[in-house]
């Protein structure tokens, strides 16, 4: 299971709302997760997600290349969120029964 702060998961979460280019993804992730990805980390994750067909590049007017989530990306994100939710449910249940 990927960690919730895994760069790939954060990028997928960012792209659920809109198509975004690298800098916009970086800013969005910082705003909703408080994590500032470095450029090497960001593009490493973008490359892996693109290679795996979870995101795709969309036409760009300038050097900044926007990306969007693919159908496979939506499914992968849903699966990851479900795994996180299962962990949270278990932890909450155990806290309640202490």
């Amino acid at each position: 299971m990927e960690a919730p702060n895994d760069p790939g998961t954060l990028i997928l979460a960012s792209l659920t709302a809109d198509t975004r280019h690298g800098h916009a993804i970086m800013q969005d992730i910082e705003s909703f997760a408080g994590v500032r990805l470095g450029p090497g980390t960001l593009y490493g994750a973008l490359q892996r997600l693109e290679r795996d067909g979870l995101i795709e590049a969309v036409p760009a007017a300038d050097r900044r290349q926007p990306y969007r989530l693919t159908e496979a990306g939506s499914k992968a994100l849903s699966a990851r969120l479900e795994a996180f939710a299962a962990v949270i449910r278990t932890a909450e249940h155990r806290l309640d029964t202490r």
Partner: protein
Amino acid sequence: MKSLLRLYPAGWRDRYREEMEALLDYIPASPKVMADLIRGALVAHLDGEQTQPEVVAAVGATAGDGRARPGHSPVRPYRLLLALPFLLAAIVLLSLAGAQTALMLEGVERFGLERTAIGPMGGRALMYAVPGVVAGLVALFVLRRR
């Protein structure tokens, strides 16, 4: 800072250099960012072996913006194999050079080693360091070559 992008594999640069440069226009240079770029380059070299070029080429082709979107050409396994002995040699030689230097400095500090002894020890450290650096450069050249 953009010059660090030269450390990335050629196929990677073809595909992502332009947009990474655009991103770096917005990010102030700092040691942390530079370290992240260097780490990213290393991962890109190592990860290239696991990349499926045909998938990436297909994804690149769907960009649909009229610009060429070449796929990521990974580091070929044979190149890694070729570079590995040079990398190992660089690590061993530079470690020996470091140990030799440490011994020399300790000798000077603890035993008041005389100048006459420093020359040969320093020479030995250099004897390890120079080929170590050369081996490291050769490994990088092999990895980065198109």
